[in-house]
Every structure is written in C-alpha cells, then in structure tokens.
C-alpha cells in the first residue's frame, strides 16, 4: 500500500487526525503541506514548549519577550536593543558554506523585522575533531560562508566561540547571534491588522530552493546509510547583496512610517509569514498565490507557500501607502508584489488569482496555536560507568597538558569584518565584545557601551545538564563583567539530540531547570530563544549544548576595558573563591573522564565577584582581566601572558586540580603595584576573597613547584593549533 501523504510530509497519524478535526473535513494536499511545515519540530517547538514555559522572562526593562522575532530591551536614551540567537546546524552539515551563510541572513532579518538596524553578529561554532577530515572541511566552509555573507551584507562579526570536539562529528553546531538597535518608538511587531490592508512581498523571487527545509532537514537526524547529499536541495542559497538592499529598504520604510506590520520569511516561508502575521493581528488573510514573483514559472502552489528562498520580507501596508512602498523598493532595486489582503475573521485563504479558486482555507491561528504539544518521556541516562576525574593520576608533565589545551581562534575571526560602524571597543577573542552605544538614527554617542557574549560548555552539561547550564549562564555574567558590563537579558539556543530518546528530553528539561535557577538568582530574564533538536548522527546524540547569548550594558566609558594582556611588572591576583574539582573540565575530558560531579556554584558569591570585577574595570584599577573558564586557571593565566607578551611567576597553585579546575566565580586580574591596596580593599569590602598569585615578568610561565615552561613555546602552540591542523598559513 502506498504511504499516506501526511506521513511522507513528516506528520504522524494523530497529527493528521487533529488537522481533519480542526477543518471539519480532510485537508487537501496544499493544506496538508502547510500544516506539515508549521507543525514541524523546528517551527512548532512541539517537544520543547512544555519545558520552555518555566523560564523567567520578565523584568522592567524588557520591552518584548519570547515569541516575537527577537527579544527587545530598553537601553536608555530612547534606544531599544533587539537580539536573538538561531541555529543553522543541519544545513551547515550538508552544505557548509551556504548553510552558514543563510544562517547569518536569517538572523539579520529577525532583527530588522523588529525595526532595528543589525549592528553585531556573533557565531558560536562547534565542529568535530580537528583530526577528522570531514570536520575540517565543514569548519573551513562554515567560516568562509559566515565571512562571505556577513562581510558583504555589512554587519560586523564581533565574537563567538569555536570549539572542536568529537561529539560534533557528523553534526556540527552553527549558531548565530545578532544584536540590533532602534529608536524605541520605531519598534514594530509582525502583526497584520486593519481590514483591507495590503500584504506586500518584497525581496528575492521565490524558487524551488529550501522546500521542506524545516521538516526534512531541521527535524530529523543524519544516518550513515542515507546519502546526505540527497538533502542538499533542501538547503537554501544566500545572496548577501539582496539582503543588504533589503535591510536598507526596510529601514527606510520604517523610518517613513509606511508599514503597519512586517515579518521576515524564514523557516516555512510564505506559509509561516502570512499565517503568523494574520494570527498575531487576530485577522484573516487572502493570499493570491499567482501574484508571488517567481524564479521559475512552473511552481506548484504548495511550493510557493513553503519555499524557503532567502532574502524575502512581508509588509502589511495601508492601501494609501502602497505606491510609496513600491517606489522605495524600486530605489533599492528590490522587487515587490502585492500578494494579499487583510480580511475579517481568522481564515487564511490561498487563492488561484484574484477572486479565483480557493486552493486552501484554514484558520490561520491553527497553524501555530493548535500545533501539537508533546510531553515526551524522560529518563536520566545511566552514567555510572563514566570515569570520575577525581580518580585520575596526576599528570607527569602538567606543562605539556596545559599546552595541549591552548587554541587561538584568530584564524576564524580575522576572516570577519569586526569593526564596521565604528563601535567595536573590544572585538573577537576576548571574554566579551564591547560596543559603543550610539543612537541608531541620530548617531549621537551615549558614552555608554553594550557588552555581548555567547557561552556554552558541553563538557559541563554532559556531566550535569542542570548545573552545567547554570554555570554557563554564570560564566556569561562574568564575561560581561570583564568588559565592565552588567547583564540585562539573554537569549538561548538549546542544541540537543533526538527528542524521541528519553535521555535527550531529560537533559533538555534539566538544562531548562538549571537556566531558570541561574537566571532567577542572577536577575537575567530570558527574552528569546531557539531549540535545535535531532542533533545526532548515526544514532549518536551530541552532548547537550545549551548556548546563551547575553547582553549587558556599561556606565559611562571613560576608557576602554584593559583586555586580557598582562603588563610587565604588574601583580597577578585571583578574585573569587579558591574552588576545586575537575568534573567537567577540559583536562578531564581529554583523558576520557566524563563522570564525577561539577564544582559548586554559589550565586551570592558569584554576584559579588561580578560586581567587584565591574567596579575595578570601569574604575580603571586593573591592567588586565580574564575570567577562569574552560581549561581552568592554568589556561587563563597562560592566555593572559601570551596576549601581553610577558611571562608569569606564580605560586599557590599546588596541584593539577588547582591548575585545571573550572570551578566558577573566578577572575584573574593584572594590577599595577600602586593599585594593589585599593583593589584589595574593594574586594574585602564586598566580602570577596583574593588570592595573590604572583607577578607578570620575564619570558617563562611558572607555577612554583608544578609548571615551568617557555612563553615563546606556549605562544607558538597557541597560534598554530588551528592553522597547522588545516594546513594553512
């Protein structure tokens, strides 16, 4: 017997029954295809929604929380900041350049859809091991794709992370974060209101690319016996020049107040954009499928409605403004077509020509609100066989182990324009990026800065997804503190394996709980997010990888933050508790030890450490600053020595646990001898302990009684890790 159409489209039998119930009849094939994309995991969050509801989302400065195209917070002086994070993991696994490029394009549209000019991008990237040829090919393609699209479209890429680990072999993670700013009064939402208003589709023509991207690609894993190249037609192809013109055209439309609502076309294409705007506005819409400008003439209506061709927007415009909208689009060489009308009631009707045959007739909101909600079974994985790093033997040569953990990512970010718009005070390669905050239309400098960081650590989260995620949030807070910024809000990208595996759902649920706990304790609301599931290849789920993108703000910037480079002759101190424990550490993972427990996280102490760090950085009292993260104190101090070009003589690090522990709430500081008294008094007044570590001097990195190595060797190891693996200059 032939497979029923709904199954071929990725819908379950129960889901097909629900659709028939909603319509009171059987859906036709076009309607079925519209439900199949909108009810896909990628669009509907059907496996994760039940958990995401637990996240804290509110604060007085939050203007728009989750559920819109981007989260928006008030940053003062009449400016609002919009930010979001997305993933393009599966397209990038198949077609690295285009997958990553269109990821950049998609996130930009989410930002300027809100009325904001995108001012910064960050890419948290995860690839398979550098030893694996396909992973190297993916990494090179992804970085070129981000570079090729992002530089051309004209939005600076100011940071992110690059991690190579075998858990991502076959399923890389390509997440992308974007920040935009707008005059607060320009904030627009993707709503279709006003009967008789016109829906204008503008941007690229619609083609056969990316059909079923959300259902075929994003909502299933990869298998060895399946030829991944067969999925290649589901990957879209990007055109950064089209997007650049689209950005400028959209911002001019918004400046002139010509649109009632606006929505980008992303996953599920026109089907999503028309139904989402109509359903948000509590209206219906008649869409003339023949009015859509096409790349090839013979597209079927279901292809037009579900195509994921890139660089397209839908604006809802009052009839009197249609001519001016078309004129502005023409100025920017952007093709525009009036394709629909806002109508009473809540039906989305697809018509074959004006007044023509009704090809589909469905309640717009049912594509969203009636999407299935699953409470999938959960089970804690049995990890009793995992090795506890506490039982590992001390290293014979801790210096060699330390050098193995060094990796400079500048091969990645020197390929990105990180300076456009003259905002970048601290760019890629530091704890967080820091941007000047200028008014987006007047250009007036507020004198304050926006800090942004992305963080994720799968080594922590495989050991304990609850605390690992909490530590991730905590690390982002401390990264922002290192540039003097106080957190305002975060967005998250939850990258997990197959939700049909109970272990994956348990990890996801634990991660959400950990994030909830940390966000409440550290006062960081969640204003948006994305969930990427089915990150698996050949039946192997990736380690849980929740990634956060956090936005913070500084006070008046009298001087740039010092960065991490040590200054010759300055003292080196650690701010924060001593901390110990090797659970979840990079060093332990290198020895296959994925068991044990993560170090303790004390939120109250963490808040005080962050506050002292911000005060010291903004007061100009420290000459170098770097938080302790992956690789522990040993790696943090060595990175600071490399950045400053000066060695270190350190004491009070007695064993490999102290050297490699990733216990949270610690910041390494370089301090001029004359400032030591002030710094110690400030820490003491806040009840934050300090450890005097040593002195920046000479050309060796020495932890007394444990490690003594040459700075030049460490620098060379640091700089060559990626280039030598890739065989490039």
């Amino acid at each position, binding site marked *: 017997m032939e497979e029923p159409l709904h199954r071929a489209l990725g819908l379950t039998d129960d889901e097909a029954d629900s659709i028939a119930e909603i319509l009171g009849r059987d859906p036709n094939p076009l309607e079925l295809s519209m439900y199949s994309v909108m009810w896909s995991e990628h669009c509907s969050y059907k496996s994760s929604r039940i958990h995401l509801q637990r996240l804290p989302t509110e604060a007085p400065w939050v203007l728009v929380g989750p559920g819109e195209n981007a989260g928006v917070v008030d940053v003062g002086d009449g400016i609002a900041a919009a930010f979001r994070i997305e993933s393009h993991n599966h397209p990038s696994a198949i077609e690295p350049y285009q997958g990553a490029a269109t990821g950049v394009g998609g996130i930009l549209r989410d930002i300027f859809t809100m009325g904001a000019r995108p001012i910064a991008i960050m890419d948290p990237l995860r690839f398979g091991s550098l030893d694996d040829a396909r992973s190297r090919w993916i990494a090179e393609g992804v970085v070129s794709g981000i570079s090729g699209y992002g530089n*051309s479209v004209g939005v600076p890429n100011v940071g992110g992370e690059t991690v190579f680990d075998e858990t991502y072999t076959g399923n890389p993670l390509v997440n992308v974060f974007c920040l935009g700013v707008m005059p607060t009064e320009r904030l627009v939402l993707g709503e279709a209101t006003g009967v008789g208003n016109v829906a204008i589709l503008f941007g690229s023509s619609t083609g056969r690319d990316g059909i079923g991207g959300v259902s075929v690609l994003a909502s299933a894993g990869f298998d060895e016996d399946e030829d991944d190249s067969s999925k290649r037609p589901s990957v879209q192809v990007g055109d950064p020049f089209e997007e650049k013109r689209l950005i400028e055209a959209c911002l001019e439309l918004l400046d002139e107040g010509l649109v009632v609502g606006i929505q980008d076309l992303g996953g599920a294409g026109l089907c999503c954009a028309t139904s989402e705007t109509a359903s948000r506005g509590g209206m219906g819409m008649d869409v003339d499928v023949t009015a859509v400008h096409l790349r090839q003439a013979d597209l079927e209506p279901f292809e037009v409605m579900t195509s994921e061709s890139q660089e397209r927007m839908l604006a809802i415009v009052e009839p009197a403004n249609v001519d001016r909208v078309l004129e502005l689009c023409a100025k920017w060489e952007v093709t525009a077509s009036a394709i629909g009308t806002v109508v009473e009631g809540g039906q989305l009707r697809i018509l074959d020509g004006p007044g023509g045959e009704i090809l589909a007739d469905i309640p717009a909101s049912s594509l969203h609100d009636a999407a299935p909600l699953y409470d999938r079974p959960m089970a804690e994985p049995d990890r009793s066989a995992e090795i506890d790093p506490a039982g590992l033997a001390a290293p014979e040569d801790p210096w060699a182990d330390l050098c193995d953990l060094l990796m400079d990512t500048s091969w990645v970010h*020197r390929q990105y324009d990180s300076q456009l718009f003259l905002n970048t005070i601290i760019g890629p390669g530091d704890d967080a990026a820091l941007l000047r905050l200028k008014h987006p239309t007047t*250009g007036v400098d507020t004198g304050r800065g926006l800090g942004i960081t992305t963080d994720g650590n799968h080594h922590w989260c495989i050991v304990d997804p609850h605390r690992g995620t909490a530590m991730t949030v905590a690390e982002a807070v401390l990264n922002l503190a290192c540039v003097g910024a106080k957190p305002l809000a975060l967005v998250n990208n939850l990258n997990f394996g197959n939700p049909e595996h109970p272990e994956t759902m348990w990890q996801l649920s634990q991660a959400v709980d950990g994030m909830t706990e940390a966000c409440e304790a550290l006062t960081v609301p969640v204003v948006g997010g994305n969930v990427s599931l089915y990150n698996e290849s050949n039946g192997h789920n990736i380690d849980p990888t929740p990634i956060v993108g956090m936005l913070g703000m500084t006070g008046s910037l009298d001087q740039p933050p010092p960065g991490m480079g040590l200054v010759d002759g300055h003292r080196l101190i650690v701010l924060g508790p001593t901390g110990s424990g090797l659970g979840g550490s990079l060093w332990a993972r290198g020895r296959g030890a994925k068991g044990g427990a993560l170090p303790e996280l004390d939120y109250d102490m963490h808040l005080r450490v962050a506050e002292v760090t911000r005060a010291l950085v903004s007061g100009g009292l420290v000459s170098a600053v770097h938080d302790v993260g992956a690789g522990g104190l040993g790696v943090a101090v060595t990175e600071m020595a490399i950045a400053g070009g000066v060695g270190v003589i350190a004491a009070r690090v007695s064993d490999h646990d102290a050297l490699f522990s990733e216990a949270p709430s610690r910041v390494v500081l370089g301090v001029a001898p004359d400032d030591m008294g002030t710094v110690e008094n400030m820490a003491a007044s806040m009840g934050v302990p300090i450890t005097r570590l040593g002195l920046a001097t000479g050309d060796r990195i020495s932890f007394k009684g444990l490690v003594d190595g040459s700075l030049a060797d460490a620098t060379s190891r640091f700089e060559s890790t990626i280039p030598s693996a890739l065989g490039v200059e």
Partner: protein
Amino acid sequence: MSTVGVVRFPGTNCEFDTVEAIAGLGGSAEILWHEDTDLSGVDAVVIAGGFAHGDYLRPGAIARFSPIMTSVADAAKSGMPVVGICNGFQVLTEAGLLPGALQKNRGLTFINEFQAIRVESTNSALTGAATEGQELDIPINHFEGNYTCDDATLASLRDNDQIVLTYVDNPNGSVGDIAGVCNDARNVVGLMPHPERASHALLGSEDGNVLLRGLLEAI
C-alpha cells in the same frame, strides 16, 4: 564650509562611518547617491568601503558604470580631491582613474586586522598632514586587496613618487608592499586600509585621522 561628498552605491557599507570620522575632525560630509549625476557642489569626493553592487562580477566592475562616476571622473580631471577607500580604491582602478588592479589576497582568505602602514609620500590629497616615514596603525578589511600592476607601471609609480602608503609587514601579497597610490596629478588617491576605523581612542587607534585631516586640508 567646504564639504566632502561620500558616495553610496547599493552595497556600500562604510559611508556613514566615513561621514562620522570626518565630522569628528570638525569637517562636513554628506552622502551622494550613486544614481545622481551631479556632485551637489561638494569640494572633495570619498568613495567609501563596502561591496558596491555586491562586488558581483569583480569588485568595482559594475560600480564604475553607476551614473555618478561620470561626474566623479570629471571632478578628478579638474583637480578635485577624490579618495577611494578599500572598495572605493577598487572602483577607482576599475574606472581607470588610478593605475593597477586589486586581486585576491595571497592566502585566499578575507583579512580584517590592524596593520602598520608607512607613509611613503606626503605629496598627495590624502597624505599632506602626515610626515614621510611615519608609521600608522590602521585596519585593513578586504578579500581583494592584493595590489598588482605590470613592471612598467610599477617603475613609473616609483619614479613619480605615486606610491603613497606601504605595508610594513605585507599581509596580502601586494606588489611593492603597496597599500595606497595616487594618480600623476596627485589629487586622486586609493588605499586599502580604512582610516575612518582608526579615528577614535576607544577604537584602538586614532592614526587614521592624520590622513582624513590631510584630505580636509587639501580642499
């Protein structure tokens, strides 16, 4: 007050940065749209960085046909200062207003980083406020910045002191370490580094200001 016109093609992205940096020096600058045919009475022209017309076909290859380029060429011939920064340099070579061409970087990757730039000649519409031999810390940001020309052109550039800026540590394979050249009348200058990105202490360098001030003084 004299005014600098900054040309905006579709795909240009450094136009407002250039205006901001010039304004930061007390100068006045305004945007010129690529479809305009007159220069609105400006006293100098900057063709800003970016990806004019998407850099499709070849950087600058389409931009040189934009209507405004006829007026820019006329102004250049009349002696008005015309500066092309990065993509603007590529446009000026494609338009035949400067010798040579910019090809893909040696190493075949995009490069964004600060570079030490040496001032080789102070006799141009851009370098008049600098001192010969001065080293400036200014970022580059390009894929196609590898300057090339035939041997005869290189010899003539050298003989006529038309190489105005060079890289101290050549990042992209440019012949003769060339970072910037001028025409033989010295009023048209092209350079790959972005002086506007080194225009504020918070950006890590203010060395670009000496070049932009030179442009304002050349008007």
